[in-house]
């Protein structure tokens, strides 16, 4: 029965993002390249985070502390990525199918977000996914009837989508100097990360449910912002 768990969790965690990748990124070569380079940026941020984690031996097991610099580094590298894409944009536009489209930047942001998200999803969840192949499971501390593998799969799935939205919002924010949007991204990133602590909470009953619901609410809020921005862009055009 372990194969069932494995495929169930794999589809839950990566199914939506893979559908997005195959449906919207894969047909476009430059978006694929963008996605890969953005994944690389995420990796560098996490490499630095792990170096800090290694040095800060006292706070290794204090997750709220770890989250502080990990999220901060990710946001920093998101900005570096923006700078890079900003510089490369004219070249990218030249080879785009609609070189003049104002939606190009949103497309780049979305591809970069998916790269960030997918790399995060792979790095953070693959160990558990491999373990789910074995006969044993770890139960979720706050929801004792559900396996942690499955809860983590759902969380991974949501967080990948989060990254897509965050990248789009922050790119708009950086472009328009709208610091409110940048702040929203940083705050909700912290929020989403701290929510995951609920999974392992021994005191909060159904903590995993609150975590998933909270993250869904944040995701919907971010999605609304994205849609509003897109709509605004569209209206400006016409």
């Amino acid at each position, binding site marked *: *029965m372990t194969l*069932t*768990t494995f*495929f*169930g*969790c*794999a*589809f*839950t965690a990566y*199914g*939506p993002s893979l*559908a*997005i990748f195959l*449906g919207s990124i894969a047909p476009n070569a430059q978006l694929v390249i963008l996605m890969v380079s953005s994944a690389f940026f995420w990796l560098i941020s*996490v490499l630095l*985070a*792990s170096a800090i*984690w290694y040095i800060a031996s006292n706070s*290794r097991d204090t*997750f709220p502390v*770890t*989250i502080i610099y*990990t*999220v901060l580094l*990710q946001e920093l590298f998101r900005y570096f990525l923006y700078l890079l894409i900003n510089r490369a944009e004219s070249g990218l536009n030249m080879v785009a199918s609609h070189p003049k*489209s104002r*939606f190009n930047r949103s497309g780049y942001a979305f591809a970069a977000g998916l790269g960030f998200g997918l790399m*995060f999803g792979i*790095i*953070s*969840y693959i*160990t*558990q996914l491999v*373990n789910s192949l*074995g*006969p*044993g*499971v*770890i*139960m*979720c*501390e706050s929801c*004792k*009837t*559900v*396996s*942690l593998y499955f809860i*983590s*799969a759902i969380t*991974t*799935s949501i*967080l990948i989508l989060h990254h897509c939205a965050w990248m789009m919002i922050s790119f708009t924010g950086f472009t328009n100097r709208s610091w409110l949007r940048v702040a929203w991204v940083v705050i909700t990133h912290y929020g989403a*990360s*701290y929510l*995951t*602590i609920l*999974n*392992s909470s021994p005191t909060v009953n159904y903590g995993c449910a609150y975590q998933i619901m909270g993250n869904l609410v944040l995701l919907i809020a971010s999605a609304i912002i994205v849609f509003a921005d897109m709509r605004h862009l*569209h209206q400006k055009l*016409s």
Partner: protein
Amino acid sequence: MLSRVAISLAAVCFLASAQDTYDTIYNDIGSLPCVRLLNATGYVGCQSMTAASGVLYRADTLEDINQFANDGGLRNKYTVVIPYWLLSSSNVDILKTSKKLAAILAVVNGTDPAHAISARPTNVISPDTTCPNCEFGLYANTPNQYQWNPTGSGLLFEQFDFPIYALNTMDTRNTMSYASVMQAANRNRDKGYRDYPLKSLQFHSFMWGAQDTGACLRKGWCTPVGGASVWSTPSTNISYTDEKPIVVITAAMDSRSLFHDLTLGVESSVAGMVTVLAVAEALSRSTIPLDTMSKHIVYTLFTGEAWGFSGSQRFVQDITSSPIQCEKPPTSGSGCAYPFYSDLEFQRLNPAKIEAILEVGQIAGMGGAGGNPTLYAHVDNIQEAASTTLLKQVVQIGANGSTTVPDPTAGIPVQAASSDDVKRGLPPSSSMSFLKSRGNIPTVVLTDFQKQMSALTNHDQDDSWNTPNTFNLIQQAASVISKTAWLQAQGVSDTAAMTPAQTEAIASIQVNAELIQDLLECLSLNYSCSLVDRYLNVTASNIPPTRLPHYSGTLYSQSQPFPIFAWSFLANMTSVKNVTSPTPRVTGCSSKPATVQCNPKEYCVGDQCIVSLTRYHDAYGVGIAMNSNAEYYIKDASKPVWTESTWDPIGLRMFDVTSPGSQIAELMTGLALTLVSSGVIWYSRRFLKKTLKED
């Protein structure tokens, strides 16, 4: 730990190592497996092709087993935890036909009231056959041979195609395993075995050996069962041609049971081994030096006896085929490279000169038949006349032991086993191997039973014995055998006709009761005792061994703690020639660095340099031989050819499982999520295209 894995989603998971995660999920349990053994016609024991895993289910009684089999609500595979005494063919059949069985855990000893010694049924059933090893014995071709073990269920000879492991609270590690398994099983029971997550166990028990010994030896997937026998004599100058008769004092050193790690064999072999060692010590006190007597005394302790008398049959086969034609001498050391012998000194023993055999069989008094413990002297019923004199002497010494010296054990009588006028012949014993080659050797086998072997023969639960009874029986047996052997060696048939020197000398032969207690303790439950330590310095090791298995192991692949100790002890005892004028011994040879270097012909035993004729002898089924390429093959399938299969690493681990239903739900969720998002993507692409066309 859990939180560490959980937090991985907060983007720091790569920091938690894989081992951490493994330890969070799995709890590795100490394992005492039942393994596969092969003989000429097939295989016995346990094996599973795949790693079996099942939800822990606790069954304490036969009713519990039936309830398990009939419970239609149990829809998974289960690991059933039962007390060892419920492990019988019929109960296993009930479990198997339920189609819900993954594996069995048999609790030999536990702290739970259901597994305590007090819960053991009084009616013990032997797991061996109704006549253990009789197909290789003296009466193998006799019709209707006497069945010595009528309660035998033959469990040891069954084939199980699923793993069976034991749990036993014999040491700290196994007690921890037992505690964690029972805690998990009890939690599952409290949840009604339905409220997932439940605790499950996975077993790795893949055995390479298949079909039979012939097939697996060709493929190299099994190793002969065996080890090292030990023989020793005070007559260091014994030779094949010295025409001096030989008195053999013998016992077995190994035993078998379903779980080899638990094989103890206090009844089957340890008591006999202790007796022979105590006899050697008692005889070393003789005021008349043993090597000057008119007959040689030879002690033999055989390994592999539980496996078709492998040790004694090989020993007899080798001494009767001397002189050995060594075609290829060894590159170094003693012995012969082909045909292979690790040592050739046995050629100094002349089998034609063996004039008496005194064997100690089961004498621990664990039969539970009730009544006063008694020693019975068995003789062969085919050439009965040969043994009449020896039997008479044994019974006489047993009866008047108290008349020569005050003897606290005189209370234990010695009777001829045929005193009820039924001639059953010899019970399964090493002597049979000698008598098979020459039937007219006077032979007496001393046991604690007259008609029926102890039901604890080759049983895994022979770990609690009646201490005073066992001591007294061993002491009396050692006393009778040492005196009989001494008189035989002196050539005295009538005690009344002894010279004053002989009368004085035989009085000096006193069995050391304290030594018997120490030996029994050391060889059964605590190998790191001071007695063993004096010889082998066992306490210097990192983890001093305590209870060690008495299964012989596979040939040349395991250390042989009991033969090694027997060798050292016998070497020490037989090197004592005369207690009245002991030659001072050189000490200090075992210290590191050695302060003293022993002479080339001396051994360093117990920190002393001694001269001794004590040798190991290879012990494995005589049906197996080694060819010139050092590969084993079957030479004679009618003789014992027991082998043990090689295995993949064996082990078991415990973990949580979710219900099969929820696993399917997980898969469905994943598929639904993927399909829905694919649909959404497809739809929004169409929508975007339509909208963007307006550009």
